[in-house]
């Protein structure tokens, strides 16, 4: 049974996805697998090594178990300041 995740996109990933966010239904159970699917669908060129992951508003690692309804953000290299 697929799970539903809420994705938010920022910076170059937002431009590439063409949207601020989306809800996806997928069999992926951790961020690594999820990003691979999204990268293929949207054509993201950034390798996972260049990104950080946030789940429900906190930093998380790539192998963390995801739960139905989680908010997930793949964070491009930051450039504030």
């Amino acid at each position, binding site marked *: 049974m697929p799970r539903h995740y809420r994705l938010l996109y*920022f910076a*170059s990933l937002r431009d590439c996805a063409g949207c601020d966010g989306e809800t996806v239904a997928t069999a992926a159970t951790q961020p690594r697998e999820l990003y691979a699917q999204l990268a293929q669908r949207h054509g993201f060129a*950034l390798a996972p090594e260049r990104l950080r992951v946030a789940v429900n*508003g906190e930093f998380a690692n790539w192998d963390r178990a995801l739960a139905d309804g989680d908010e997930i953000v793949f964070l491009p290299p*930051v450039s*504030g*300041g």
Partner: protein
Amino acid sequence: MSAFRLSDQILDAAGLSRELASASAGACVGFEGWVRNHNDGKAVQKLAYQAYAPLALAEGERIMAEAAARFAIERAICVHRTGELAIGDLAVWVGVSAAHRDAAFAACRYVIDEIKRRVPIWKNEFYRDGASGWLHPDGSPVEG
């Protein structure tokens, strides 16, 4: 009010500075990041910041707490802009008061360095030649 804040409005450095006042403070160091008219050899026209606000606020607040724990300071505040900014606009402001200047300088530097390194905020530069681009922390372009 929180020590780390995001704002989509023009920042009032003088007003923020007044929040640092303390009768036992002898030193106050402020950092202002301004929008520069050039980067990496290209003429910049304006820029826009995006933030992942909930995590930016949480991570920013952690950095402020680290600064307070590491250095003998009295008060510290950082505010980062979001949205569109013009050349010369104040993009980020950091202010630290302390009994002595060593701690004020060190903590102010620590805060701006960590903010730039860790807080999920992204800068999109719009160049005079019509191009634009998201930047890495080192100023080089990010490919989507």
